[in-house]
């Protein structure tokens, strides 16, 4: 976004602002609207071809070793053959960010089909791109939050998080009144009736920074900032090095230390490739502002679930949105602003 559009204070850290608003630094894949290829695009296309060659070579080796019996043999059933084929194609697919629309459709088809083969159930998966003139932001009213944690539960259900380890994207910090924002002494793991006397509550999650440190450090560009400001992860491209986790100053990222478990009945079947689709072990995940909802014009699950109305979500570029009204009329602040990360997540009090 250009600086005129920016409605919040930003630190001038002498960072040369990239002219394209997309954090990925290139114009291909999901970040591209132009049909024509520029030079960079053509270079970035090369890996796809090289990968095809790599795939063939690997296939050659494996066939030589007799390792792909299941996908080549005539005896095994059609379904297991198809399954093996899907796994094969999935293993060699590229980074989502660099995929053409056709490739995106193909991988989405494969993923839904593979779920069908495994469970017999259908799901719908979207690969919808960011819309023009949209930049998502979030505001949190500290005076209203009572610590009910409905947002946390809604988030877990909406985003198919691992139930076994109780993974949660949102943390609600219970703070002592009279001590100010003292995170060190706050409790983000309470099990008692709320609101507790003499306490106030504050939620944190991924802040979708405008200058996200996690994106910079990822060695394989498995995580990036979309055009509408959402920081996303390609779960199939992530190699699980957890460098981004070390780089996040807000504890916004979660890692799948084991294979995540979601009972089939509870799986949210309305999914997005970059959002709540099922993850595997050894990959990073985090809040995506419920990309499967927000890109369809809905509010994220946490906003919807909050009984007190502490949470506001909206388009920062739309002057008539609620979030803009809050930024314009309330005394808002953000956490750890000195780090220059520019979160798109504001706090305020009534």
């Amino acid at each position, binding site marked *: 976004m250009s600086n005129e559009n920016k409605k919040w204070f930003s630190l001038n850290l002498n960072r040369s602002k990239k002219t394209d608003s997309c954090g990925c630094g290139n114009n291909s894949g999901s970040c591209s609207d132009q049909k024509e290829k520029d030079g960079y695009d053509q270079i970035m296309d090369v890996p796809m071809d090289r990968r095809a060659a790599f795939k063939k070579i690997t296939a050659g080796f494996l066939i030589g070793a007799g390792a792909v019996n299941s996908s080549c043999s005539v005896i095994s059933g059609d379904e297991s053959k198809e399954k093996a084929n899907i796994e094969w194609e999935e*293993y060699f697919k590229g980074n989502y960010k660099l995929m053409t629309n056709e490739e995106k459709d193909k991988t989405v088809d494969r993923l839904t089909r593979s779920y069908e083969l495994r469970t017999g159930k259908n799901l719908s998966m979207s690969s919808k791109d960011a819309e023009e003139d949209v930049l998502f932001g979030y505001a949190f009213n500290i005076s209203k939050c009572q610590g009910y944690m409905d947002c946390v539960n809604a988030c877990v259900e909406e985003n198919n998080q691992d139930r076994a380890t109780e993974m949660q994207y949102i943390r609600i910090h219970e703070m002592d009144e009279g001590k100010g924002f003292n995170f060190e002494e706050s409790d983000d793991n309470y099990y008692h009736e709320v609101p507790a006397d003499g306490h106030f509550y504050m939620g944190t999650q991924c802040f979708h920074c405008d200058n996200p440190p996690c994106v910079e450090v990822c060695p394989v560009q498995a995580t990036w900032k979309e055009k509408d400001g959402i920081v996303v992860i390609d779960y199939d491209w992530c*190699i699980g090095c957890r460098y981004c986790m070390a780089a996040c100053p*807000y*504890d916004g990222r979660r*890692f799948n230390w084991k294979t995540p478990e979601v009972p089939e009945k509870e799986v949210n079947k309305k999914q997005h490739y970059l959002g709540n689709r099922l993850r595997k072990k050894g990959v990073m995940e985090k809040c995506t502002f419920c990309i499967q909802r927000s890109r369809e014009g809905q509010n994220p699950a946490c906003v919807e679930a909050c009984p007190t109305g502490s949470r506001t979500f909206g388009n920062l570029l739309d002057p008539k949105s609620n979030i803009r009204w809050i930024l314009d009329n309330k005394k808002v602040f953000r956490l750890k602003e000195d*780090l220059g990360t520019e979160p798109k997540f504001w706090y305020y009090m009534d």
Partner: protein
Amino acid sequence: MKTLKVFRSLVKDAMLEVTHGNRAYHIWMAVLSFIMLFGMYNYSIQLDEGLSATGMTDRVSWGLYISNFTFLVGVAAAAVMLVLPAYVLKNVDFKQAVLIGEGLAVAALLMCLAFVVADMGGPARLWHMIPGIGVFNFPNSMLAWDVIVLNGYLFINITIPLYILMMRYQGKTPNPKVYIPGVFLSVFWAVGIHMVTAFLYQGLQARPFWNNALLGPRFLASAFAAGPALIIIVLAIIRKFTSFKVPDTTIKKISMIVTVAAQINLIMLISELFKEFYAPTHHSISAVYLFFGLNGKTALLPWIWTSISLNVIATIALTFHKIRNNLKILYVLCGMLFVAIWIEKGFGLIVPGFIPGPWGKIAEYTPTFVEISVTLGIWAMGAFIFTILAKTGIAVELGQRVYKKK
């Protein structure tokens, strides 16, 4: 074509060399193989269950593996710093040390790479990192830099000694014009790998404990103490068990390097402690945790205080020529220093970076049995590789294995 033939013969001779030895040698290799196999078995458990088989969590997301990785990068870098005086200054004393040093560098680097792979959540997807077929986030990601410099360094450190050995093997003298530029490159590169690895941590504004301009230089200083200390110990062992001659003066010269580096390292440690504890800020809290514990959580205290005492005692003792020149004591001091720095650059550096977490949560980290076994397995692998390299190298150097023209 001829080179290829010589190489093939060298490999064959090397095979012969490493499969023959006295009883102690065979026992040594058998023990290492056993530990390696045990580590591999435990790694298969980790592959199966995921990283939940380790003690790492969302709160402390790097542990024993990355600690060892960090430390070993230092060892690899320091080993090669001995190359410079030997080849360029024509300081004959160092020549033997160099061969050992480069072998050590190769072994340490392979261990580094093994530790990184062991730490990955999706090792099967590592091809995503290969430039050309994957996507490589260069130059933004320091990890991408690290992959490049480590592999480049490995390449340099394999080619130079290989060239020298090949020449010796054929009974020729290596041509300095060929290897001296490589030697220079490797020395700069050695500083590079260590600085880049330090930048990996130093560049994270999220972790004040690491976000510290002294980190890189301190890495270097501690590496130049720990690496040569290890070389001294290894040389002592080689001197004892083989007919390879290492004069006392070589060891004494190396001990000078160790001493100076250890002294500089201690000064930097004092500077760091002063900054953290004279006027403590919010950002000193990780250091408080490391040295004194926080809210009754004190898991790292025994480690860091062991490290500091060993470090201080060894450095002070090394400073006195009388003590240092007594080789028996020197070996002990080197061992102490090595352990001290292993703790300090490993556990003592990586774990407190995560404690307390970004919102002040104090969750401690204890490695699991699986994690420790894999770590031991990788160390055994390093020792195994080094033994093979050193044994072949020594045999060629001593002229026991020479190329026979047919």
